[in-house]
């Protein structure tokens, strides 16, 4: 990476990488537990509700919570953060990545390849699959688009990346699962109308809105292209564990291999680097990221 002459040697990319790497070693067991756990809980809601052991509305609330927890474990898998380069553990990325997304009804392969393109072309209007979400006019518009399904423009990106063989292959690999996620609710709704609506379809919509607003919209709002400029540090009235600490998302864009729960420590260590690089909002990073330091008072 070519260094800008403005950056002091002590904040070089090489030094930044060494620090970041030290936070990229740990096995992400919490994410595996959350991913597989929420999917198991969501699945168990069906027999419980259908047998009258759990009220449908209680099931709806639990399913919605599961859907909000569903994306992040898959996101870690998309980056290979469970296997961490070990070919013998690659199955774990696929297992968690696929299973956790059942609640949201999204095929893992498509999310993985489009997310890789999001990292490669962040904030590029033509090539960033998240561009429409991140650069929308308001949070209400984002919510409307997600509910409408118009944020899912996978066909468009199949055309944009038609010469990328790996992208096209992964896309085609995902088609059977995508069709299954389209067909399964249509079959289930005929037999169990309200259960399908309140245990799967509506929670998946709520989870998708939550994920898009906090993972795509807020972290990239008002940012431009460039490694240190395409994501920002931001504050929110909501305690950070309720929005998956997405205020810290910029560190993920700089170093995707840092595990999600190791990001606060990594940010503390890398704060001087981030300020030197003029990451948007970096000067507001607290010296110590405690459990809940980011509420705007």
């Amino acid at each position, binding site marked *: 990476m070519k260094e800008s002459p403005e950056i002091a040697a002590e904040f070089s990319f090489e030094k930044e990488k060494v620090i970041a790497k030290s936070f990229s070693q740990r096995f992400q067991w919490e994410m595996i537990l959350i991913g597989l756990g929420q999917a198991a809980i969501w699945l168990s809601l069906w027999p419980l509700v259908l047998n009258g052991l759990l009220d449908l509305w209680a099931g709806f609330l639990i399913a919605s919570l599961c859907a909000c927890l569903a994306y992040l474990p898959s996101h870690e898998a998309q980056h290979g953060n469970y296997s961490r380069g070990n070919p013998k553990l690659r199955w774990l990325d696929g297992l968690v990545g696929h299973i956790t997304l059942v609640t949201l009804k999204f095929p893992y392969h498509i999310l993985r390849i489009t997310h890789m393109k999001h990292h490669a072309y962040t904030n590029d209007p033509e090539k960033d699959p998240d561009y429409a979400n991140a650069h929308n006019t308001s949070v209400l518009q984002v919510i*409307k688009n997600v509910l409408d399904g*118009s944020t899912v423009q996978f066909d468009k990106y199949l055309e944009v990346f038609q010469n990328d063989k790996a992208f096209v292959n992964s896309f085609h690999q995902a088609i059977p699962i995508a069709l299954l996620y389209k067909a399964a609710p249509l079959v289930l709704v005929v037999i169990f*109308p309200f259960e399908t609506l309140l245990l799967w*379809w509506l929670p998946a919509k709520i989870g998708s809105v939550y994920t898009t607003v906090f993972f795509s919209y807020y972290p990239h709002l008002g940012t431009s292209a460039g490694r240190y400029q395409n994501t920002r540090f931001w504050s929110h009235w909501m305690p950070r564990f309720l929005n998956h600490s997405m205020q810290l998302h910029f560190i993920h864009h700089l170093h995707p291999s840092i595990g999600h729960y190791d990001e606060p420590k990594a940010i503390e260590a890398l704060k001087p680097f981030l300020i030197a690089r003029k990451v948007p909002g970096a000067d507001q990073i607290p010296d110590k990221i405690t459990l809940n330091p980011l509420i705007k008072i």
Partner: protein
Amino acid sequence: MLVEKFLNHISNWGKFWFGLIFLGSIFNEILEQFTMLSGSSFLWILAFGSGAMIGLVAKIRGAWL
């Protein structure tokens, strides 16, 4: 070839089928459970017809909302 045709159909008519089957089933259940119309032979026509109509409008508009 057949798969491609099927995928094209889903892509073009997905909203209509979703309206007919998904929304139709939900409307049918609501009418069955929460109205006096329960047992009426025209109930399913009203429910699935409304669903299909909403789906068709969404297909023509290219968006649900």
